[in-house]
């Protein structure tokens, strides 16, 4: 009975199409001309800081807010002006929004009963869904008797009960504790892939976004900054905002010298970018794990002399603060595996050499 939204032959791969969405709240521009499309069966994550418009965009897709301009096409049907009740989606909120006075089974059946489904069919469907979310015996309980993570699983079951074409998740994991969050992350992703339901999730947690998404939409101040797979967004951020927001990164203000060389303070670095005219001020971005830290003697010839400023223990690796000997270069942060920290006896004051790999460096202006 649980059908995956199987992909009919010849159906458009673009399941959801947003074009030119704008929304103002009074004078505040919540969304400034947002266009986007989601493929059938993919899990797309809207990622951004609070106030970036990601939740507003989700609510517009749900018909809970109305856009000031722009169109929404879902599965070939223009739903731009349709009220929420005529659209085809299931939704899960951060607050679970389970009806407290109904049992778990009644909560899950809430949308089924209305569609005049036979009572036995409803019962079977509810049992199926309960099993699907891993709580086969919870039916007779009330939501208040369940933990947060269990409640969110029930909310998910309620949302997919009617087999909607689109699943919307509004920060579904934010109210849970850290362990439960990681566990449910995997469960939701597995369930989504199993059902093949096109899903849009909103979150401000980049780890969540990177681990769950097929594609991540990074948003800031009412605009889309970048759309890409988690790897693309992490490895080749399109804008300084994305570079900053997704993961930790070192930023070095630099001036292009031409022919792939960039001056940072008193040193000249090689970067694999040859298209930037000499004299252009730019910024170089480098992930902490890309920086090679070598104890004196073992380094490549182009490594730079530096000193360890501080070592912060983080478990598997250490965050090592590094001050280059050359003048005018900002302090760097490198991730160094714990074993290497121990072997090299890295401590504040240790003399090291660092290498900044040209291929790992991103140039953004």
């Amino acid at each position, binding site marked *: 009975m649980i059908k995956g939204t199987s992909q009919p032959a010849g159906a458009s791969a673009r399941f959801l199409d947003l074009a030119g969405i704008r929304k103002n709240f009074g004078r505040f521009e919540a969304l400034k001309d947002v266009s986007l499309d989601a493929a059938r069966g993919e899990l797309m994550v809207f990622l951004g800081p609070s106030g970036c418009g990601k939740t507003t965009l989700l609510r517009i897709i*749900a*018909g*809970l807010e109305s856009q000031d301009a722009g169109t929404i096409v879902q599965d070939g049907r223009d739903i731009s*002006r349709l009220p*929420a009740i005529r659209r085809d989606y299931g939704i899960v909120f951060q607050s679970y*929004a389970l*009806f*407290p006075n109904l049992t778990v089974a009644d909560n899950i059946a809430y949308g089924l009963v209305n569609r005049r489904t036979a009572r036995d069919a409803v019962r079977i469907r509810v049992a199926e869904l309960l099993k699907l979310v891993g709580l086969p015996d919870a039916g007779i309980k009330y939501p208040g008797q369940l*933990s947060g993570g269990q409640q969110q699983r029930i909310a998910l079951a309620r949302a997919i009960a009617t087999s909607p074409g689109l699943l919307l998740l509004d920060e579904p994991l934010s109210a849970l504790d850290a362990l439960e969050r990681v566990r449910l992350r995997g469960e939701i992703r597995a369930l989504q892939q199993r059902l093949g339901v096109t899903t849009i999730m909103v979150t401000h947690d980049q780890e969540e976004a990177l681990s769950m998404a097929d594609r991540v939409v990074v948003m800031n101040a009412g605009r889309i900054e970048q759309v890409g797979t988690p790897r693309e967004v992490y490895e080749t951020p399109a804008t300084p905002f994305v570079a900053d927001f997704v993961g930790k990164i070192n930023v070095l203000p630099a001036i292009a010298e031409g022919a792939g060389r960039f001056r940072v303070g008193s040193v000249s670095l090689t970067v694999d970018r040859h298209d930037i005219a000499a004299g252009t001020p730019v910024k170089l971005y480098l992930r902490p794990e890309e920086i090679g830290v070598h104890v004196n003697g073992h380094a490549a010839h182009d490594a730079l002399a530096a000193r360890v400023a501080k070592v912060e223990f983080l478990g598997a690796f250490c965050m090592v603060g590094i001050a280059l000997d050359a003048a005018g270069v900002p302090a760097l942060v490198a991730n160094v595996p714990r074993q290497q920290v121990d072997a090299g006896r890295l401590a504040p004051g240790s003399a090291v050499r660092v290498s900044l790999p040209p291929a790992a460096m991103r140039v953004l202006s």
Partner: protein
Amino acid sequence: MQVHWHDRLAQGLLLLCCAALALFLIGPLLMILVKSVQDKDGAYIGLVHFREYFATPALQQSIWNTLFVATAVTFITVPLAFTYAYALTRSCMPGRSVFRVLALTPILAPSLMAAISFIQWFGTQGLLKGLLMGHSVYGPIGIILSAVYATFPHALMIVLTALLLADGRLYEAAESLRTPTWRRFFTITLPGAKYGLVSATMVVFSYTVSDFGIPKVIGGNYNVLAVDIFKQVIGQQNFNKGAVVSLVLLLPVLFAFSVDWVMRRRLQAQFSSRAVPYVPRPSPAFDRAMLVFCSLVAIYLLAVLGMAVYTSFIKLWPYDKSFSLRHYVYGLIDAGVIVDYFNSLKMALYSALFGTVFVFLVAYLLEKTRGMATLKAFVRLVATIPMAVPGLVLGLGYIFFFNHPDNPLNGLYHTMGILVLSTIVHYYTSSHMTAVTALKALDDEFESVSASLKVPFYRTFFRVTVPVCLPAVLDIGRYLFVNGMVTISAVVFLYAPDTRVASVSILNMDEAGEIGAAAGMATLIVASSTAMCILYAIVTRVLLGRTQAWRATSRV
């Protein structure tokens, strides 16, 4: 966005409710303004009435009398209520729950009853007359004694809430810093209860200013504004002058109301869901002192209620104190006055029934439906007005509005319907706030989830919203019933011979010197209100225990 017929339905209902509020609140109030600048024939005469009014020394004296009495009552009631609430929340004296229930009993009785009781205690034939050392109880003394009784529970509830909101951790922090008790009181307790105290002050003040039953019965020749309105309207049939006095009465009440409104908002803002309740520790000397204080207050409260009940069951105070049912049998039943009691019962039940439905519906439409933001802001504002309007003023407005020959609703005049309407409107604000608070506690996304599941909003309303809010709904019903039983000020202008209510007949019997029968009627009202409160307690316990199993269960 296309508008679904569900939304249209909700918006249509809201418009209807808004129209009803405008019709039964704004219309009558505007008519008072209009009438105050018209002569008897309806011609515009500007401020002539006002000039005449302020040129009459007797009427001016009423203003000062009113302010004096209200101020005195406020200065007595608020400290009494604060100390009482302090004893209930901060001491370990025995019998706290009993004291709490006792303190709320005055709410169950019409304010007139207190006046009648004090006449029995301190009047010309009073048992304790000597205590007044030659002063007469008819006048400011009687008014103040009775008004303190009537306002005490109102002040107590507000101050009690404020004290209960206190965060126990503040006291623990203070203790760990070795702060002496007196300093904890002045730096934590008092500031914490500040808004509650101001709010209580304003409520007591405006209650006393607007109350008409007490000064009418025990005021003697001591004139106050509320009685002036009554005299102008009923005595001299000078409706326009009545309108002028109404506006004068409205001023101090409006002022108190505005202060109270601001304070209540701050009181709510102060509430933190993470506060840890304060748990008092035994302190023998303090607990004993508090017990003595509360016992004295309780004796005062019981003496008033007890005297009224006693008076109704004896032959003739103070000459023949033998037990008798003659006041009930001859005074009420045979005299046909008992009909008034049934009218009251009917009116209170109708008010509770229709009022609760209307109040909850409006609050729901305001809080849980989409669109019509401007209209909603207007309705929210209008919903706060009734608290600022004394019942007499509202009643007078109803006369002007519904007795107007051009008003198509003219037929309502002199019916049970208009009594019920005026009662619902008069007690609207508190009921509305109860409903809004309950609805705000619900998850905002219930309606969104329902829409996504294609369930119409009204189904979710009946299946989820109402059941979850049932305690608040029942509470509103009880509140409207009890107030419907005791109210006099709004209905005194509106009743017809066949819709006369119990509180009005108490007034009439008192004037006719039938104190025993009047006390009997008051006793019947208290008994009915008490019965309703007991019923409410049972229902909330039994019915909620069954249908709201989810509430009792705690999280795993």
